[in-house]
C-alpha cells in the first residue's frame, strides 16, 4: 500500500506541469467579513476540476487558472463564494460568515428537516466533528461531543462494547441504551458500520423527537447515516485512510514489589516476577480503508472496504475485522422514482483470554516463578499452588483460550416515488442478520477449571435476524402563503428472531484441537458439559403520523403520534400510543434581537415506551427442569426424560413502560455567528417501569388466576422514576490569534439525578427499597453483603454500608456499624455523576490543524474493589500481593465493605488529541493528502485510586442485564486495564 502511494505521488507531481499549460497565475488574499482578518486554510479550487490549494497563514493564495474558469472559495463557517477569473490576475475576496450553518439539514425520524425548523432537542455531528484515532466503534466518534450523551467503556478491552447513556439513567429496566437507527433502520447492529463510512450522526435527545420511534425511543435515538455515492456524473473519487496505532497499558494500581512483599511477611518463593509484564504487551493495531464513489447516468454508487486489526494489551487478546459496504442509488422517471440499495457485510474474528487475567497478575505472589517442573504432568510447565482463588496468570493466559467470529449482513432496499410533486411514497425493506460462532477451551492442565474436567471445550453459535418493513407517505403543502404543512404517515413491522445452539464436552487426550473437535471429548453428560438450543421471536407492529407546521418561516409546530402493538404483552395490553408535541419560534426573524443573529426558543413534550426484556413474560410457559429417571434405575435409559417446571410467574397484565419528557431549549447565534450554542432543560418521568418484583412464592398468582407463583419474582409494571438536567453547548468560532484560528467548544450537562418516586406494583406488591442481590463485592468473604441500596424517595445507585471511623491501637478498623446492623448502615456515596463535560478545541494554522478534547465527569463515586479486597494486611496478604495506595491505613482487619472503599471518582481526561497536516498538492488527481498523529487517553487527572474513574452505569459482573442497571458504580476486579493509544495515520483522496 505504501509503495502504491509513493508511485501515485510521483506520477501526480510528474504530470501536473503538462496538464496546466494554457493558464496564468492568479494570486490574492482571503479575509473574513466579520473581523477583516486574513483567513488561512480557505479552500481555493477551480470549479469543475479538482485543482485547488488552501490559503497560507497570511490568507494569501496563488494558483494557475485560465480566464474562462471560475474559482471557488470555501471555508467552514463561511458562505462559499465563486468568482470568474476573466482577465483578473489578483482576486481579493471577503468571505461572509455563515451563521446559518443553522440551515443545515438534520436527519430526524423518517425524514429530514431544516435545522431551523427543529423544535425538539437534536444534536448533529458531521465527520469533521468526529474524534480521531483508533476508533473501531461508531459511537466512540461522539464521545464527549454531545451534551447529555455519555459514552463510556471502562477499561480497554478491544473486544468490549461501549455503554451509551443519553441524559443519564432513564430506566433501570430493559433497553437503557439509545436506539440506533442506521440509514432509517431502527435497532440496527452497530457492528455493521465502520466509522469511515459515516456521513452524519444525529442524536434525538428529548422525548418529542424520539417519540416517532415510540416504544423503543425511551433512552433516546441515535441516527447514523452512511455516506452515499457522488451525484456528480462520471466523477470517481477514491479515498484511502490508513493508520497504525500502539496501545500502552495505563496502570494506576500499585502493588508491593517482591522485596516489599517479603519484608511485609509474604511467603517468599525465591523469585522475582513482574506478572503484569508477563501477560501484557504493547498492542499494535492498524486499519486500512478504501472507498470509491461516483456515478454513471442516473446511477450513483459508493463502495468501501474497511480492514482493521486490533491487538490488545494482553498477549492473545484482539480482533480482526473486514467490512464491506455498497450504497447504490438509481433514479428513474425523471427522478420521480428513486431506488436505493444498501449492503453491508462484516466479518469479525476475535480471540480473548480469561477476564480476570489482570486481577491475578496484580495479586499473584511476586516472588513466585512463572515456570516450574514440579507439577509437569498435572499443570504443565507452570508454577502452581493449590490455593483458593490463586492461579498463575501466565498459565491462565496460555491454558484458557476463547475465540470465534461474528458475521453481520445488512441488506436494505428502498424505493421512493413522487406520486405528486408534493406527495412522496416510500417503502423500505431491511434484513439485519448477525451470526456468530464462539469457542472456549480449558486445557487438561488448567488448574482453575480444565484440570478437574480433563480438558473442557465448548462451541456455541447464535443467529439474530431483524426484518423490518417500513412504508411512509410524505406530503407537503402551503396552506396559506405563510403557513406550510409537512405531513408524514407511516407503517412499520419489525420482526426479531434469536436462535442458536451450543455444546460443551470434556475429557480430551490432547489440548491442541481446542474446540475444533468436540467429538474427541469423551464425556458429554453431567458436570462441565452442556447441550442446548433456543429460539425466540417477537413482532412489533406500528403505525405513525406526524404533522409539521411552519408559519412565516419563524414559528414552528410539530405533533406526532405512534401506535405500537407488541406480541409479548398480554392480550389486552398489546397496543400503546406515544404522542408528542413541540413548538418553537425564531425570535430573530420576528423582531430585532440586537446581538442575536439567531435566537430560537423551543418547548416540547413527548411520550416514549420501553419493551420488556423478553417476549414471553405474559405467558404461562414451562421450561426444562432436571432430567428425571422414572424408575430410578440408571441402567434403563428409555424412561429418562427432561422434566417440566414453570420457572416464571406469568403476568398477562404486563403493559408498556412509558417515559414522559418535557424539554425547553434555546438555540442561539450571537455576534454575527461568532458564538453559537444551545441550552436545554429537561424533566423526565418514567412510569410503569417494567421490572421483576419479589412476590410471595408458592401463593396464588394475582395476575393469572388459577396459577401459582413458582418463582420468587414476577415481571410487573413497577416503578416510577424522575430525573432532569440542564445541558449547555457553545462554540466560539474561529478566534484569530495571529495566524492561528481557534474554535473552542464547551459542553456540559448538570444532572438532576434519577430519583425513585415509587416501587409499587399494585396487587399489594412493591418495595420500600431494592438492594440487588448480585451487588456484593464477591468472593472471598464478601458474598453476603449488598453494597447498593435503591430506596423510594432517594437517588438511584446509593452506596450503602458502615462508615469508616478510624483505626484503633491494634490496627483494626473502627466502623460505624457491625456487619449485621443493617439498620445502622448509612448512605456512603452515589454512583451517578452530578455533571459531565467535554471541552473541544480546534486550532488551524495554514495546513496544520490541532484538535484536543478534554472530557470528564464530576461527582460520582466508585467502589474500588482492588482496595476493597487487597489493601488490608490480614493473614491472607501473605499469599496474595497487596494493593498500595496513599489511602492505606495499614489495617490488619479482614476486608469488608465500608465507606473507606467508596471513592470520589471525579476526573478530567485528555480523551483525544490530534495534530494533522494537509500536504499541499497542485495535482489534479490528488485532492487531499493528510497525515496526522493522534493520541487517545493521554492522561487522566483524578483522586480515584482504582483502575479507571469512568462512570459505571451498569455492573459488569452481574450477569443479569436487568438488575445490573440497579447496581452502578462498582469497579470489579476483572476490569480490563485501560490503555493510552498513539496513532499515526494518512488520508488520501484521489479523483
Amino acid at each position, binding site marked *: 500500500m505504501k509503495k502504491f502511494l509513493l508511485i501515485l505521488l510521483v506520477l501526480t507531481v510528474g504530470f501536473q506541469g503538462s496538464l496546466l499549460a494554457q493558464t496564468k497565475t492568479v494570486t490574492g488574499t482571503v479575509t473574513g467579513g466579520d473581523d477583516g482578518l486574513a483567513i488561512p486554510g480557505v479552500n481555493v479550487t477551480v470549479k469543475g476540476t479538482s485543482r485547488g490549494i488552501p490559503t497560507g497563514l497570511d490568507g494569501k493564495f496563488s494558483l494557475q487558472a485560465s480566464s474562462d474558469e471560475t474559482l471557488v472559495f470555501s471555508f467552514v463557517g463561511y458562505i462559499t463564494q465563486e468568482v470568474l477569473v476573466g482577465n483578473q490576475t489578483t482576486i481579493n475576496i471577503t468571505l461572509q460568515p455563515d451563521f446559518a450553518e443553522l440551515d443545515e439539514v438534520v436527519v430526524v425520524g423518517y425524514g429530514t428537516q431544516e435545522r431551523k425548523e427543529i423544535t425538539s432537542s437534536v444534536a448533529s455531528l458531521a465527520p469533521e466533528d468526529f474524534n480521531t484515532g483508533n476508533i473501531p466503534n461508531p459511537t466512540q466518534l461522539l464521545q464527549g461531543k454531545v451534551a447529555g450523551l455519555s459514552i463510556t467503556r471502562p477499561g480497554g478491552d478491544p473486544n468490549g462494547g461501549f455503554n451509551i447513556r443519553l441524559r443519564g439513567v432513564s430506566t433501570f429496566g430493559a433497553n437503557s441504551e439509545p436506539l440506533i437507527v442506521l440509514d432509517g433502520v431502527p435497532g440496527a447492529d452497530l457492528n455493521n458500520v465502520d466509522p469511515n463510512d459515516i456521513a452524519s450522526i444525529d442524536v434525538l435527545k428529548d422525548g418529542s423527537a424520539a417519540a416517532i420511534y415510540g416504544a423503543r425511543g425511551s433512552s433516546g435515538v441515535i441516527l447514523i447515516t452512511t455516506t452515499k455515492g457522488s451525484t456528480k456524473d462520471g466523477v470517481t473519487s477514491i479515498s484511502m485512510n490508513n493508520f497504525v496505532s500502539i496501545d500502552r497499558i495505563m496502570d494506576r494500581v500499585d502493588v508491593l514489589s517482591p522485596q516489599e512483599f517479603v519484608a511485609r511477611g509474604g511467603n517468599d518463593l525465591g523469585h522475582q516476577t513482574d506478572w503484569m509484564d508477563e501477560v501484557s504487551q504493547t498492542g499494535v493495531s492498524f486499519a486500512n480503508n478504501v472507498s470509491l464513489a461516483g456515478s454513471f447516468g442516473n446511477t450513483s454508487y459508493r463502495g468501501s472496504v474497511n480492514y482493521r486489526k486490533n491487538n490488545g494489551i494482553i498477549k492473545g487478546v484482539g480482533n480482526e475485522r473486514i467490512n464491506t459496504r455498497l450504497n447504490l442509488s438509481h433514479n428513474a422517471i425523471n427522478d420521480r422514482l428513486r431506488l436505493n440499495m444498501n449492503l453491508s457485510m462484516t466479518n469479525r474474528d476475535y480471540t480473548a483470554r480469561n477476564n480476570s487475567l489482570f486481577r491475578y497478575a496484580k495479586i499473584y505472589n511476586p516472588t513466585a516463578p512463572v515456570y516450574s517442573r514440579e507439577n509437569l504432568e498435572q499443570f504443565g510447565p507452570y508454577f502452581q499452588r493449590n490455593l*483458593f482463588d*490463586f492461579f498463575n496468570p501466565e498459565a491462565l493466559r496460555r491454558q484458557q483460550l476463547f475465540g470465534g467470529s461474528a458475521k453481520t449482513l445488512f441488506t436494505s432496499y428502498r424505493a421512493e416515488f413522487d406520486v405528486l410533486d408534493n406527495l412522496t411514497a416510500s*417503502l423500505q425493506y431491511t434484513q439485519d442478520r448477525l451470526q456468530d460462532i464462539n469457542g472456549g477451551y480449558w486445557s487438561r492442565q488448567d488448574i482453575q*477449571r480444565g484440570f*478437574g474436567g480433563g480438558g473442557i471445550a465448548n462451541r456455541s453459535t447464535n443467529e439474530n435476524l431483524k426484518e423490518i418493513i417500513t*412504508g411512509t407517505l410524505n406530503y407537503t403543502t402551503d396552506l396559506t402563503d405563510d403557513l406550510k404543512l409537512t405531513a408524514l404517515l407511516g407503517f412499520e413491522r419489525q420482526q426479531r428472531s434469536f*436462535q442458536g445452539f451450543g455444546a460443551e464436552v470434556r475429557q480430551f487426550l490432547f489440548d491442541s484441537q481446542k474446540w475444533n473437535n468436540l467429538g474427541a471429548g469423551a464425556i458429554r*453428560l*453431567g*458436570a462441565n458439559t452442556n447441550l442446548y438450543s433456543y*429460539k*425466540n*421471536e417477537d*413482532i412489533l*407492529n406500528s403505525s405513525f403520523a406526524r404533522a409539521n407546521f411552519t408559519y412565516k418561516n419563524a414559528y414552528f409546530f410539530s405533533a406526532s403520534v405512534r401506535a405500537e*402493538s407488541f*406480541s409479548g404483552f398480554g392480550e389486552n395490553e*398489546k*397496543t400503546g400510543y406515544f404522542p408528542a408535541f413541540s413548538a418553537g419560534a425564531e425570535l430573530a426573524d420576528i423582531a430585532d434581537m440586537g446581538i442575536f443573529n439567531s435566537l430560537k426558543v423551543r418547548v416540547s413534550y413527548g411520550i416514549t415506551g420501553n419493551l420488556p426484556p423478553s417476549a414471553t413474560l405474559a405467558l404461562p410457559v*414451562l421450561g426444562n427442569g*432436571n*432430567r*428425571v429417571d*422414572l424408575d*430410578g434405575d440408571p441402567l434403563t435409559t428409555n424412561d429418562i*426424560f427432561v*422434566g*417440566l417446571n414453570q420457572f416464571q410467574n406469568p403476568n398477562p397484565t404486563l403493559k408498556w413502560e412509558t417515559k414522559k419528557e418535557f424539554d425547553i431549549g434555546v438555540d442561539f447565534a450571537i455576534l454575527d455567528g461568532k458564538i453559537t450554542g444551545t441550552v436545554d432543560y429537561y424533566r423526565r418521568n418514567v412510569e410503569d417501569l417494567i421490572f421483576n*418484583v*419479589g*412476590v*410471595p*412464592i*408458592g*401463593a396464588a*398468582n394475582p395476575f393469572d388466576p388459577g396459577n*401459582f*407463583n*413458582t418463582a*420468587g419474582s414476577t415481571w410487573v409494571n413497577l416503578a416510577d422514576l424522575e430525573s432532569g438536567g440542564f445541558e449547555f453547548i457553545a462554540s466560539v468560532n474561529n478566534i484569530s490569534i495571529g495566524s492561528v484560528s481557534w474554535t473552542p467548544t464547551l459542553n456540559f450537562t448538570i444532572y438532576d439525578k434519577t430519583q425513585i418516586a415509587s416501587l409499587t406494583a399494585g396487587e*399489594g*406488591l412493591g*418495595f420500600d427499597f431494592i438492594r440487588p442481590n448480585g451487588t*456484593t463485592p464477591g468472593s*472471598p*468473604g*464478601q*458474598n*453476603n*453483603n449488598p453494597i447498593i441500596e435503591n430506596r423510594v424517595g432517594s437517588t438511584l445507585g446509593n452506596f450503602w454500608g458502615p462508615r469508616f471511623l478510624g483505626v484503633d491501637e491494634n490496627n483494626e478498623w473502627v466502623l460505624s456499624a*457491625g*456487619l*449485621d446492623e*443493617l439498620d445502622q448502615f448509612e448512605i456512603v456515596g452515589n454512583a451517578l455523576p452530578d455533571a459531565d463535560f467535554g471541552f473541544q478545541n480546534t486550532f488551524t494554522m495554514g495546513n496544520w490543524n490541532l484538535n484536543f478534547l478534554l472530557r470528564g465527569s464530576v461527582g460520582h463515586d466508585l467502589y474500588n474493589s482492588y482496595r476493597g479486597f487487597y489493601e488490608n494486611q*490480614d493473614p*491472607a496478604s*501473605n499469599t496474595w500481593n497487596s494493593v498500595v495506595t496513599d489511602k492505606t491505613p495499614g489495617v490488619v482487619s*479482614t*476486608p*469488608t465493605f465500608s465507606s473507606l472503599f467508596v471513592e470520589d471518582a471525579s476526573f478530567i481526561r485528555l480523551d483525544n488529541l490530534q495534530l494533522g497536516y494537509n500536504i499541499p498538492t497542485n495535482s489534479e488527481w490528488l485532492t487531499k493528502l493528510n497525515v496526522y498523529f493522534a493520541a487517545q487517553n493521554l492522561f487522566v487527572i483524578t483522586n480515584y485510586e482504582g483502575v479507571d474513574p469512568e462512570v459505571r452505569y451498569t455492573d459488569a459482573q452481574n450477569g443479569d442485564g436487568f438488575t445490573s442497571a440497579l447496581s452502578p458504580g462498582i469497579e470489579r476486579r476483572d476490569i480490563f486495564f485501560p490503555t493510552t493509544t498513539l496513532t499515526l495515520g494518512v488520508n488520501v483522496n484521489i479523483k
Partner: protein
Amino acid sequence: MLKLNKRLSFLAALVFIATACTEPDQEIFDAFTPEQLANSNNPVLTDVLKASAYQRIIGTWGGHNSLWSMHEVSSDEMVIAHKGADWEDGGMWIRTHRHEYGANEDAINNSWVYLYSAIGDINLLILQFPEVEALTAELRSLRALVYLWIIDSFGNAPIITETSADATPPNNTRQELFTFIESSILDNIDKLSTDNTKTTVNKWVAHAILAKLYLNAEVYIGSERYADAKTHIDAIINSGQFSLTNNFFANFATQNDGSPENIFTIPYDENNAGGFNLVQMTLHYSSQASFDLQEQPWNGYASLEEFYNSFEDGDSRKRSFLVGPQFASDGTRLVDASFEADDPDGAPLTFTPEINELRPNSLRQAGARVGKFEYASGSPSNMSNDFPIFRYGDVLLMKAEAEWKLGNNGVALDFMNLVRKRAGAEPLSSIDADILLAERGREMFAEGYRRSDMIRLGAFNDAWWEKPASDPSKNIYPIPTAQMNANPNLEQNPGYN
C-alpha cells in the same frame, strides 16, 4: 399493464398496512405451553410432571446457603470458621452459629424460596390432574412433607393449597400447620402406593412424616403425642420392608440407592439431579487431589471438637469425620502451600479436630471434616449419593425415644443398642435426654436433623463452643425480610424484627 401494476401495488400496500396495524400474536418455539400439556397423549407425561415436582425438593437441600446449612451450622455439630476474609460472607455463618441470625440472612430466604416453590409446583400439578386419585394423594402427601420442613423451620407460615386464591396469604399458626400436615396424611395414606421406591412418597414415607410430626408435637403445638408417634413408627418397623445395613457407611456410599435402610431419599445425581455439594463445602482446597475432584473444594464446613469427641474410639461411626494427615489419590502427602506460620502442623495438610478460633483467623487446616458420605473419585461438585430424609436407623432411634417418653426404658434401650451394635459400640444401660441426644448425634451427624433433635431434647439454647446460651425464640427461624417485603400480610415470628 401499468394500470394493473398500480392496482397490484395498491393492494400490496393495503395488505401491508393492515398487517402493520394488527396486534401480533406471540409464538413460542422453545418452551412448553399448558395447552400443549393438556392436549398431549404421551403416556409418560403425567409421570414426568410428577417427577418434575419432586425435582423442586431435590433443589438445594444438600447445597451451600441452604436449609441444610442453616440446620447444621446453628447446631453444635457444624461450624464455618472465618479463614481471614475467606468465608466471612457478611458474618452470617458466625451469626448462625451463635444464634444471632436475623431476617436478612440469605440462607434463610433461600430455604423459604426452596420450600414454597415446591408448594407452588405441587399445587399447580394437583390442579392439572384433579381426577387422578393416586397422583393427587401422593402430591398432597409430598406437600405435607414440605410443610413438615416448614413447621420445623419457620413455625408460623402460610398454608397454601390448590384452592387458595389469596395472593398475599397471612401466616397460619403452628397448630394450624400441624393439623394440616396431620390431616393431609391421614386423608391420603390409604390411597398411597406400597411400592418401596425409596424416592417417592408412599405409605411408609407417610408413616414417617406422621412419626416425625408426633415426636415433635411438644415443640410444635405444646402437647405430647408420643403414643401416636409410636403407632406410626411401629407401622414402619412392622412392615418388614426395611432393615439395618451391616456396614453403617453403605447408607452414604455414592451408590447408596439400594440400601435396605432407605425409606425416603432425595435421589441426587451428578448428571440428572444436582444440588448435593458437600464435597465442595467441607473439603480443603488441596483435597481436590485426594479424590481427583473436578473442582477445587471451598474449605468451609467442619465439625466442632467437642462434638467430634462425643464419638468413642471403638464406634465405627467415628469414621464420619476426616481427621489427621491427608493424602493425594496416589498416596503422596498433601501440602498446604499457604499454611499459616502459627499452624502447629506446618505445611503438610492435616485436619485437626481442634479449631483455634472461630474468627477472624481460623487455621485453614483446622477442624474435622465431614467424611460420612463417600466422595467418589473424579466427582464433580454435584454428588451422586442419595440424601436420606427418612432412614431406618433414625426410625429405630425414634422408636427408642418414643418408648422412653412413654416410660418403657427397657424397650427404648433395646432399640438404641440395636443401632449401637451395628456400629460396633458397646451397649448402653441407661437412657435419658442427654444420652439419647448424643446417640442421635453419632448416628445422624450431617443428615440435617441435629437442630431439630437439640430443640426437642432441650439442648438447643445451651451454650457451647463459641456460642452463648440463646433465647428460645431462636428455635424457629425468622420470616425472611424479602418475603415480608413481598407479602405485607406476613407477620414476623416473635423475637425478630
